């Protein structure tokens, strides 16, 4: 059974892009468009990895990551932050919230896939 990855992004194009990339590489993808939805889906499906956009409606990616990392059942899931925030300190904020790594938009799909693979080897 293929590993399941949760893609969180409020932009449908970017969700589809990541879905195509990861599906093409043989992963099963589930999508969330908002922070609260991401936390709920993570609890339901317990994915192998989460790609978390930071700027999200309802609750932002940092808060969603904090909630997921606070759940003992989910704390082990690697969370890679995907951000288009412009200013410095984003990587530090992401790490402080519990993210395991950081990808800056616009990203190269190849680089993202390489990073995902490094966590799911």
């Amino acid at each position, binding site marked *: 059974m293929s590993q399941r990855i949760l893609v969180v992004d409020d*932009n449908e*194009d*970017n969700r589809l*892009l990541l879905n*195509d*990339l990861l599906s*093409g590489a043989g992963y099963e993808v589930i999508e969330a468009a908002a922070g609260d939805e991401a936390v709920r889906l993570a609890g339901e499906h317990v994915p192998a990895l989460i790609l978390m956009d930071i*700027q999200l409606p309802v609750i932002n990616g940092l808060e969603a990551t904090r909630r997921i990392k606070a759940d003992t059942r989910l704390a082990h899931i690697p969370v890679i932050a995907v951000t*288009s*925030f*412009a*200013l*410095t*300190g984003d990587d530090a904020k992401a790490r402080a919230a519990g993210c395991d790594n950081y990808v800056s*938009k*616009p*990203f*190269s*799909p*190849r680089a993202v896939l390489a990073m995902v693979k490094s966590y799911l080897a």
Partner: protein
Amino acid sequence: MPDAVLPFRSIIRRLVRVVVMVAVCCAAAAITLQALYAIRQARTDFDASVRDISANRVRTLSSALGMSEPTLAQAQINEIAVAPQIAGVRLLTAAGIQLQAGRVPFAAVPDATLEIPPPAGSGSALGRLYLNFDHSYVMRKVLIDTAITAAFIGVFTAVLCALLIRFLRGEISAPLQRLSWRVNALTPEALDDSYSPLRVKRPWRDELDQLWEGFVTLHGGLGRYVAERNVAEAALAQERDHLDEKVAQRTQDLEAARNEADRANRAKSEFLANMSHELRTPMNAIIGYTELMLDETYGPLTPKMRDIHRRVERNGRHLLGLINEVLDLSKIEAGQLTLTAGEYSLVEMIRSTVSSLEGLARGKNLRLYVNAPPVLPIAYGDERRMSQVILNLLGNAIKFTESGEVEVQVHTEAEQFLVAVRDTGPGIAAEDQQRIFEEFQQADTSLTREKGGTGLGLAIARRIVELHGGRLWVESAPGAGATFSFTVPIAAKLEAEPPASAVTQTLEAAK
């Protein structure tokens, strides 16, 4: 005012005292002289009376005695004794007869003795006449004379003193006192020219008048000075108030202008940051999908489709580069570009950057190489940002140089690195050398369209170097290429490079 504690002693009192003392002394001297003269006069009178007796009475007595007429002799003696200054007369004849007359008992020692010669002028003396003077009479006479003189001199002196004192009071004491009162009554408010004269008008002036005139002149001058000063002070105070107002107004204006500028600057930075963020989201989809297409995630591509997708990707990346530069500048403008400082090897970083541009240089048939000494210290700062500076300078050098070479020189100078990027390009005119560091400026604006780029690269590079406490400058002349130099901070300890890479590394891009 230490003089205030001393006792006050009026000049006029002391003056009067001196005058009275001098007058008393003079009077005493005059009286003494008069007494001495009276005594001397008494003596002269006495001598005159002895001569008179000798000349007149002695001859009569001689004949009386010669004729043995004692009664006649007695009568003569009685006549002699009548004179007031003669106290007593005694006649002792050769025959031993003694005759005498007088008011008092005859004294043992006579005051004068006269020989009575014989009437014929020959033979022995007929007797001797002893005279006694009335001393108390002489004394009385002297005393009375002296007393009269003393009374006269005393009255005269007293009148003279009184006149002198009156004069001194009128001439000196009273005007001095008035002057003193007026000077003491002097207040800044009473400074005007309304002066009454010091004393009644006279056809002459003296020292006190001069003093008073001097005082009036001084007082009037002081009054005018004070009045002028008051006017000036009032004007100054008004000016100062006005100035305070002006300063306050100007400060308020400046503050408002600064707040406005700050607000505008913040708005600009926020706008740039937001724009960059908004631009990155669609860029992500464009570049990402293009890459997926080129990786044939969606199926195989015809050569034409692959070429088109490559063009899309290249333009997408170029657009992304522009967006990143705008983003960097907005960070710097917003003061949010922070350095992640640490120690790093400058030469290694430069070589790695040079390697990444090798293909670009080779494509233009340019020689690209690094020229650095074998051993260099460790650098300190934000390696990624410094690499951005080198990348920008090298990128420009390669972009604008059509033939020849691009060299990166590294050496240490004055406790810091000096990195120079030299090219054999068209060079930059002197008037453009400052402008190219300003945002959105290139030496030739037509080059922007021809060569691409935002014109932000040099501005960003200079800000990064300045954030490291260094400087970035250019030396160039049209047709003579350009050399962009900048300084890089040195960390404390020496970096020992392996001997293999000690020789100048040359990347022959042309080969």
